[in-house]
């Protein structure tokens, strides 16, 4: 170490300490007066600005969720003088205590504005603005408030938003969430919250002793959230909702080209607007207590026994495992007995279907045929192909609260009931009864996979970059077997013995499968799924009516109506 290095170091340290002292002198003595003034009653206010939430549009750009302007009464409690309370209480028709309670409620930092009342009328807002001199600390802020112009039409798809809880607020990024921020609670609003939500801004303002704005010191503009565009066709969705008004039902229609859902309707529905406006708490309660569970999205959040629709799976399993060929015949005389001591199981058609092959068995939905098939299969065989076709597998559709269905097997039963699997249960499983549970959208996906010749399908709601439909993973099912199933599905509708002939439309050939799932003691659940047209299919669909009775009647009629609506909306008549 040299002498000069040491002294240079020593000098540098004391020079920098001197700079520090000079800086403090400048801040505290030279500019001290200015800061002293700012600090008295603290004249700096920080006003957070919420970012406008992105909108939700349908495929044609129609607004499903948007923002309307609302007037909110805010107050900075530190600026409010005691005589303000009675005046404000009178203007807002509120209790003084309530106003005080809201003022002392949780705030993000000192001098942060507290929200006294949201969404007041324009007249009242102007009145308060006019009387501002008498109301120090109180002001009106215009903010966007969520609005769903079509109410119940696509409520389960769009979802709704709600206020943050204190716990959530503590864990979230302050740049995006304020204490009064809203967050998506269901549907697209929830799963796309990050995209719909923008970035908060704010202004630092200097106010005078009477809490009036002197100048804006600095400002950060809020960044609005991005819009989300859905694959849903609003008009189609609306007509379908009208069609299933009054019944507990779900209808979902998918475009096979894009794999986007054109409609996903669940009835009964609710008006998401009631979750936005604080004044509609009674309506909220009514919705939550309603025995029809309008909040429940019957398309994805509830699982039901599939009934005969499941015979498609059993047929595929038997064909793939080589247990039958399409021409394998069994005789149906109306009933079936597994062993000499077993209980008699009946076909829905008590007179019996006679000797039939696989096509006829699917066309007429013969139970006895599938009992015979089930005798040759293990529950694992059926479960394997059910999973292969997406049953009991997670869906990637962009709504929250997806409940997967249930595909039982021996291991599952052992774990759940600590009991072995009985062969009779395989019979039940083969016709979609017993433990099997599916959601309507899972059935839609199954049909779409069949219609797409075995390519894996992921129904979705938000427009995505188009993928090559001929590319992508396939299920482990041979195409020739799927062709058999497709042909049988055509017969279901087009044959005069078919269970789905009520769905027949006169403009194109339809393929489908009905299902009537027993749900004692009430009426059976009614199902129909299918794809359309038979050649070069464009649509896949599922119709489900809770306790709707026979699939071939209730659901088939709805399918016909739905296809007619689709034609009306999409096929321009040739003049």
């Amino acid at each position, binding site marked *: 170490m040299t002498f000069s290095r040491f002294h240079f170091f020593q000098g540098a*340290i004391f020079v920098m300490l001197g700079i*520090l*002292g000079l800086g*403090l*002198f400048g801040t505290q003595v030279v500019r001290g007066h200015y*800061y002293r003034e700012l600090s008295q009653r603290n004249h700096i206010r920080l006003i957070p600005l919420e970012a406008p939430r992105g909108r939700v549009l349908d495929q044609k750009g129609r607004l499903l969720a948007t923002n309307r302007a609302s007037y909110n009464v805010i107050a900075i409690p530190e600026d409010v003088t005691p005589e303000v309370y009675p005046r404000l209480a009178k203007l807002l028709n509120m209790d003084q205590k309530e106003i005080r309670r809201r003022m002392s409620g949780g705030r993000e930092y000192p001098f942060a504005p507290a929200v006294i009342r949201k969404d007041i009328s324009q007249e009242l807002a102007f009145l308060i603005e006019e009387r501002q001199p008498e109301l120090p600390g109180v002001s009106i802020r215009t903010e966007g408030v969520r609005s769903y112009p079509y109410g119940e039409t696509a409520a389960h798809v769009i979802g709704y938003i709600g206020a943050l809880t204190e716990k959530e607020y503590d864990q979230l990024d302050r740049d995006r969430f304020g204490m009064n921020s809203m967050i998506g609670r269901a549907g697209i609003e929830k799963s796309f919250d990050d995209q719909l939500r923008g970035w908060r801004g704010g202004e630092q303002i200097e106010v005078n002793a009477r809490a009036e704005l002197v100048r804006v010191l600095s400002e950060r503009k809020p960044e609005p959230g991005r819009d989300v565009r859905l694959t849903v066709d609003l008009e189609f969705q609306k007509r379908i909702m009208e069609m299933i008004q009054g019944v507990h039902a779900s209808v979902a229609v998918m475009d096979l080209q894009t794999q986007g859902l054109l409609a996903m309707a669940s009835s009964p529905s609710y008006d998401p607007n009631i979750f936005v406006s604080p004044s509609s708490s009674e309506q909220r309660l009514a919705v939550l207590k309603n025995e029809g569970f309008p909040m429940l999205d019957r398309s994805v959040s509830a699982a039901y026994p599939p009934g005969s629709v499941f015979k498609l799976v059993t047929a595929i399993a038997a064909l793939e495992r080589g247990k039958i060929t399409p021409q394998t015949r069994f005789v149906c005389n109306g009933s079936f007995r597994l062993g000499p001591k077993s209980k008699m199981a009946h076909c829905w058609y008590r007179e019996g279907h006679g000797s039939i092959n696989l096509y006829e068995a699917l066309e007429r939905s013969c139970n006895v045929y599938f009992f015979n098939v089930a005798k040759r299969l293990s529950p694992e065989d059926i479960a394997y192909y059910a999973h292969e076709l997406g049953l009991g597998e997670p869906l990637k559709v962009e709504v929250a609260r997806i409940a997967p269905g249930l595909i039982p097997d021996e291991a599952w039963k052992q774990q759940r009931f600590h009991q072995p699997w009985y062969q009779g249960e395989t019979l039940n499983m083969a016709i979609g009864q017993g433990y099997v549970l599916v959601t309507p959208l899972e059935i839609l996906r199954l049909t779409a996979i069949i219609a797409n010749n075995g390519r894996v399908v992921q129904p979705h709601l938000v427009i995505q970059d188009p993928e090559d439909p001929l590319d992508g993973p396939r299920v482990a099912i041979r195409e020739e077997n799927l062709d058999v199933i497709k042909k049988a599905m055509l017969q279901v509708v087009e044959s005069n013995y078919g269970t789905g002939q009520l769905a027949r439309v006169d403009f194109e050939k339809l393929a489908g499968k009905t299902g009537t799932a027993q749900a004692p003691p009430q009426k059976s659940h009614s199902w129909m799924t299918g794809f359309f047209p038979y050649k070069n299919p464009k649509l896949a669909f599922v119709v489900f009516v809770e306790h709707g009775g026979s699939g071939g009647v209730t659901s088939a009629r709805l399918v016909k109506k739905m296809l007619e609506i689709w034609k009306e909306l999409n096929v321009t008549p040739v003049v």
Partner: protein
Amino acid sequence: MLRRLFRGIHLPLVFSVLALAMIGLLFIYSASYRDAGQYEVKQLFWIAVGLAVLVGVPWIGYRPFLSISYLFYIVTIILLAFVDFLGSKHLGAQRWLDLGPLSIQPSEFAKLGTMLAVVNFLGSHHPWEGQTRTVATALFLLAVPFMLIVKQPDLGTALLFIPMSIVMLYLWGVRKRFLFTVFGSLALAVPLAWEFLKGYQKKRLLVFLNPNLDPLGSGYTALQAKIAVGSGGLWGKGYLAGTQTQLHFVPEHHTDFIFCVIGEEWGFLGSLLVLCLYGALFHAIFLIMQHTTDVKAKLLCGGVLALLFSHVMINIGMTFGLMPIAGLPLPLVSYGGSSFIMTCMALGLVLSVYRERSIF
């Protein structure tokens, strides 16, 4: 016996330490007496422990510390790596290691551990023989803890390594050309490092350059801290009478922003008093440096000085906008056990240099 124990005590240095600790205690109380937590009582305990360390270390002497420095270095590296995987999240960064009721901040130890290892290494090599290799090894020793602390992420502490390294290398006798090349290329690497910074760190640096960028977050803190210090004026608002800090405009005001409370309540004169006490402390260290002939001892004193000085500079500078908002304590004044004891330990090493001074 007592005379022998205190023979090696450099009184001006100990006096500055005591005075700063007392000022700290006063203002920890002022900053937090309205909150639960009894920070001043806890701090009193830490001061007692710290003073014991301050007196105890010279009694052992600095040489034993240097001889186990590599071991100490390795232990701190392991602790740091441990924090990265097991540390508890505190204010969004993993800096603390929970050991039952005690939580320690290994980055505090890492500063001292690294310094001792580098001092020992540089002191054992002559600057005129194979300088390139020596410097490269020293820089490697510095870089490992540096990267680990950056990863935590504790950018403030990590940046302290830079002045510390410069000072130690400079006093050791590195060629100036070398110093310029290494730290010049470091400066060029800044845009690259930018990519690795966490969002909030980028924001802090940007807001440092222009506080108006973020009026909601750091910009607000920066402005309120400035108002707090500035509003103290020449005389201050009086002890316990600060409004800015008492109303919680300034966050963490008993730890990192303690100087805001001092500046507001005791004004410029109080600030000057604190600065002068630090000046006295640094001066004492310089005197001790001058009176030793051991290269390692000189490097050790230089490193300690650089470290303390950077803390003071950044901590006080950030309250009035000279420096970015970094989560660094004001040594000896801020609330906190790890920081106080480590500072006392570092100063204890300096005192032991004084105790073994050459008399001439």
